[in-house]
């Protein structure tokens, strides 16, 4: 019996089941779920549960009960609220609800679900940065319009960015567009990893524009380096 009888009724049960089976096929799934006492210890430790209508207990419970309808609902409405802090590894049953959510998110991205597309809206520049340059945040991301809630301090940094970076003793940190200097061979190797592990296909599922841009950047580099058997 499902605990979510009226949710997403327009989606056939088979499709919801297919997504659940994809989660279960992830090798980590078995390591992260052993059942659930429904004790709520994970909820007490969970920061997102304090702020959102969100519960790691419900996630673990739905998966342990194999409640396909409820799992589909969570896949759409809940998983992106998690902070991935792993406070829930306090679980006395040995579950890792945060780890289960990582797996669920991957399935959402792999299948281009609306929840994944929504969650990643406005996030493309960060994905571009990490996949394209090898570091996740760069000094030049500190712009007042990106962080208005951090106050005038951000403008001060962006106004002085070049000279403040040159005032750093470690020579690898004299960069403004990457967090540190990453050499060309290393970047090429990273591009190869994204292609060889199916990450490029994941990006294509959720953001075709970003996929095109990344592919443009990577294609020639990989070819020049002799990685043409992708």
């Amino acid at each position, binding site marked *: 019996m499902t605990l979510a009888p009226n949710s997403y009724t327009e989606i056939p049960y088979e499709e919801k089941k297919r997504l659940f089976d994809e989660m279960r096929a992830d090798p980590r799934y078995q390591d992260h779920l052993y059942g659930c006492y429904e004790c709520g210890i994970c909820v007490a430790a969970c920061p997102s549960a304090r702020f959102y209508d969100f519960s790691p207990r419900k996630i673990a419970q739905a998966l342990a009960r194999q409640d396909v309808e409820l799992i589909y609902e969570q896949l759409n409405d809940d998983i992106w609220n998690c902070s991935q802090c792993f406070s829930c590894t306090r679980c006395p049953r040995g579950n890792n609800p945060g780890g289960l959510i990582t797996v669920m998110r991957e399935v959402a*991205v792999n299948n281009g679900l609306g929840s994944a597309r929504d969650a990643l809206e*406005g996030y493309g520049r960060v994905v571009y940065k990490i996949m394209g340059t090898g570091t996740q945040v760069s*000094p030049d991301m500190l712009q007042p319009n990106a962080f208005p809630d951090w106050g005038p301090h951000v403008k001060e940094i962006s106004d002085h960015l070049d000279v403040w970076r040159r005032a*750093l003793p470690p020579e*690898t940190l004299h960069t403004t567009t990457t967090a540190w200097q*990453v050499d060309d061979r290393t*970047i090429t190797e990273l591009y190869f990893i994204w292609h060889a*592990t199916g*990450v490029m296909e994941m990006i294509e599922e959720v953001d075709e524009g970003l996929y095109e841009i990344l592919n443009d950047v990577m294609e020639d580099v990989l070819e020049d380096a002799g990685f043409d058997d992708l």
Partner: protein
Amino acid sequence: MSKIPLPIVQERRERQRPATPPTEDIREKVFEIEDAGEWTVHRVPEPYTEVTTKYGRTKKIPHQGLWHHKSCGQCGHIPGYSTAIFWLMRKLGFEYDDPKDQTSCTAWNYYASATSNSAAQAAVAMRNFGAAYESEHFPLIHCGTSYGHYKDVREELVAHPHLRAKVRSILDKLGRPFVMPEEIVHYSEWVYAMRHEFAARQVLDLSEITATVHPACHYHKLVVEDAIYDPDIYGGQRTAVVTAVAQALGAEVADYSTWFDCCGFGFRHILVQRDFTRSFATQRKIEVMVDEANPDVVLTHDTGCVTTLDQSQFSGKAHGRKVGVPVMSEAQFAALAMGAHPYKVCQLHWHNTENRPLLEKMGIDWKERWREFEDELKQLESGEKEYVTWDDVDAEPVATGSDS
């Protein structure tokens, strides 16, 4: 909110530690895989310090010859964090490698967007480990998330031969060796292991300073059995890193009830859903610290935690919340205690929350130090100098507290 008095926490220690660790020792499996010829184990170089982990096992923390696996958020937005780690190593006269053939672990993005998978994450980790091995330096992981994530990756690679085979074939194509380090070591473990060396070189008296410590989630909640616990610190009931360092330097570490809570970083939240981050950081962490401990400084040991706890206070202040406590890493705090320049080394001008009253209380003449830093900036701006270098900084006499 009420906290359990520390003496009671400390008393629990001997009664609670199990006679046999409840988890397997993954490092034994790592060596078995080497015996089977599947990978090389990168040995911890000597000399090393042996420390105790959660269930009483021993972990080796190497002293020098380290490959600094840098952190995106530290290098990008709070660069005094990374610089202070290097500076501490230089002050002890230790050789190290600050590599350019390192990528991010990419886990911040993975935990934020899930636009990756196990194989990609493991390949990124093993490429970095391979690069460290080739440089004949042992990896020292600056970021708490990289550290926790790499330990997860190690578990996955050990548990799943198919994953191992796939990642190995990628490393083969890249021409990199397939190497697993004997230990995965966080910089704060190195700082913990070296704390008495720092105390011996300390020039400031910190006995009037009260700190609160935020233990980073990805340090002690991922692969929990591998984090450092010390019977002398919280009775071995909480991780000892950071706290032990502040205490060794003579500061008082005050307790607060929400110590286990995360900082509110949230990975995706800090970038695109900061309403959560701001509220959690100020209401569940900073305000509780102020109410219960009234600290002069918050010390922590991870990129996201310093960023979140520091930057979130601006909006908290606008809403009249009880905020306004400076935040830094314990590495920066230790460096200041040893006379590091607050701006040239610790780069505190990249931090948001007002820290000058703290510097004054520590006995640092921040006005004079800022003037010196501005002189450097003028030289850079005029073209007289292209960069500030380690030679410039190493040549400086240590700033003692007496000139304030």
